[in-house]
């Protein structure tokens, strides 16, 4: 029983990870893939934070009354990771918009025939 509770967060993280990746693999829409990617990254954040938790400890803000604090390092790393995640999402969405405008679709099946390497290069339609 303690195993289940002790490791439940990790398993939950793994489930989230696999769902996130599944969305990226299975769904055709590019924006949907980005969201799947977002989920996959958030699951990593939960994993890191789960590692840093200490039973019965307060957040690592030094205050007189307390002496056992949770591990600050994972939080710092995740602060960076969250912003990186958003940055990637922003650039991804911008690309999706541009793809929509030049190819007229953001569905993977429709895009494949248009991006076959054998086609001659076709510059983007000027606005």
């Amino acid at each position, binding site marked *: 029983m303690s195993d289940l509770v*002790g*490791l*439940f967060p990790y*398993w*939950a993280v*793994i*489930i*989230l990870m*696999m*769902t996130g*990746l*599944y*969305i990226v*693999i*299975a769904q055709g*829409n*590019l*924006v*949907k893939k*980005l*969201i*799947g990617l*977002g*989920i996959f990254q*958030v699951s990593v*954040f939960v994993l890191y*934070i*789960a*590692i840093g*938790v200490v*039973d019965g400890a307060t*957040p*690592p*803000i*030094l*205050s007189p009354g307390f002496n*056992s*604090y*949770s*591990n*600050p*390092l*994972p*939080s*710092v*790393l995740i*602060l*960076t990771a*969250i912003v*990186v995640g*958003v*940055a990637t999402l*922003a*650039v991804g*969405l*911008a690309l999706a*918009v541009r793809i929509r*405008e030049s190819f007229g679709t*953001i569905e993977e099946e429709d895009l494949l025939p248009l991006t076959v390497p054998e086609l001659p290069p076709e510059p983007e339609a000027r*606005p």
Partner: protein
Amino acid sequence: METLLMIGLLAALGALAVTIAFMDDLLVVTMLSGIFSFTCCAIFVLFDAPDVAFTEACVGAGVSTVLTLAAIRLTGRREKRVGRRASAVGLIVSTICGLALVYGTLELPRFGDPLAPANQHVAPHYLNESAAEIGIPNVITSVLGSYRGYDTMGETVVVFTAALGVLMLLGGSQARPLRRGDAPARADRDVILRSIATLFVPMTLFLAPYVQFHGAYSPGGGFQAGAIFGGAMILYGLVFGIDRLNKLVPERVLKVIAALGVLTYGGTGLVTLALGHQFLDYDALSPRPSGQQIGLTAIEFGVFMTVTCVMILLFQRFASRRSEP
């Protein structure tokens, strides 16, 4: 009680993820991902990581949902029904991988076990020494700003790169700006929104500097403050129209301030170099504890400037782009 709450929240997360996988209306999916982020904030609070929860709320939930919405406006709401809905192979492979990972985690130290190596090696130094070395109660901010200050600089640059990227992709010669009157502020209909906004925006604008400068003592810091300030501006843009926002904070200014933010951060480092110390060693500014605090405030301010401007810039680029028929 706490474990029950944890299991409940994690289960909620799982459920949300699965529903997102099978919904096809992108608008609904975006909302669900917003909710998904908020549940994460709850979990982070539960896991004694308030700073992270704070950032996840502002940046994770706030900004990315807004950006996704702005993008969907341009790329269309409906996901095509037909097509490889469920990739059988993907399902099988991910389940197998999941099982393998579960098998892999069996030997991990148990959740919350104080004796786990992670908590034994470097973390105690931060908890015990930071008071003497840096002298601010919020250990996360001290680790973020000073011990691993270089990472944070790198991360600010990442934010700046994102802005740069979006500017190049949607700005400059690809701008396709909205002509006058494309998105009129519909003064008649959303009077409720406008009144709340007039109340709400100034409040948040005040909250931002508090979070920024109080970061040393309570959860908060440059990222969170920047996100809040940016959020407020975005709210203003949403409610009172993009043109008003563009006029209030023109793109040229934003670009300069964003660049300045990164330069302030880097500049502090170069200053410490000039004073003969290692890069980003704030003790160069003044003797031990106070030098660190000065350094921290400086870099936090740099981060604040960059994050704010980048958030607003991103929203502006997406919002003020004319959508194709």
